[in-house]
């Protein structure tokens, strides 16, 4: 389903249809949002929607693959803040950048994917 959504018909991703063992597309771990009980970008009963007043923008994303994600993997994710920095905007004012690092581990506790999301927000003056 994820591979379909990104328009990628590589047979390596088609295991749900063929029953063959598969690997996940490189950005598949993003779909772990489905399993986050506190996910703010999914409508949930009783949670406010839309989820933000002024949200930040997704500025950068990086992945380090310790091994490919394969069918049958059960991954757990831990998140921690990374670096933050402030940059002068070309349009004037300040932009605050903040990293959030997600580590996906398999059932043996081995790192599979390390993801880093950088969000940028305009700093209120």
């Amino acid at each position, binding site marked *: *389903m*994820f591979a*379909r*959504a*990104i*328009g*990628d018909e*590589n047979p*390596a*991703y088609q295991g749900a249809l063929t029953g063959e063992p598969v*690997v996940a*597309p*490189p*950005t598949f771990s*993003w*779909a*772990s*949002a*489905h*399993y*986050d009980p506190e*996910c703010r*970008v*999914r*409508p949930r009963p009783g949670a406010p*929607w*839309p*989820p933000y007043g002024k*949200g930040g*923008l*997704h*500025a*950068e*994303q*990086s*992945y*380090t*693959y310790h091994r*490919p994600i394969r069918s049958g993997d059960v991954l757990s994710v831990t998140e921690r803040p990374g670096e933050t920095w402030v940059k002068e905007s070309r349009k004037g004012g300040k932009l605050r950048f903040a990293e959030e690092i997600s580590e996906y581990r398999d059932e043996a506790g081995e790192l599979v994917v390390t993801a880093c999301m950088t969000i940028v927000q305009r700093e209120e003056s």
Partner: protein
Amino acid sequence: MSAGVGNGLSTGAGTVRVGDERTTVVVEDLKRAQIVQYAGASGDFNPVHTDEPFATGPAASPSVFAHGMLTMGMAGRALTDWFGPEAPLTYKVRFLTPVFPGSTLSVRAEVRAVEGDTATVGLTVTDQNGVTVMTGDATVRTSEGARP
């Protein structure tokens, strides 16, 4: 080891050399429905991507726009079609400008360095107007064999 021009690496299916490049069209005339499809697949239903009245109202956007991660996901095909689905070791991108419905995106991938059995690949994603919407780079394992 230096990674100069002509410092090629032999693989089962071909040789990867600094300066090798490929351009892949990863989406033509992006549809709102594909953005919604990606919302469903990824679990990211942020209304700036899925709710036109929200996007054009409170979010002050000309329309809904694609998730950056949809662009990154589509552009990843430039790497995996070339080097194989298990080849990526790192993949890093910067989102430069929103991608709106109707966009046609081309990914230009260029080998910048080859060292041992890994290659560094630069990625530039441009839309139908020549605007660069995303840049990035990746390191890939070339031992899986580059696809012709």
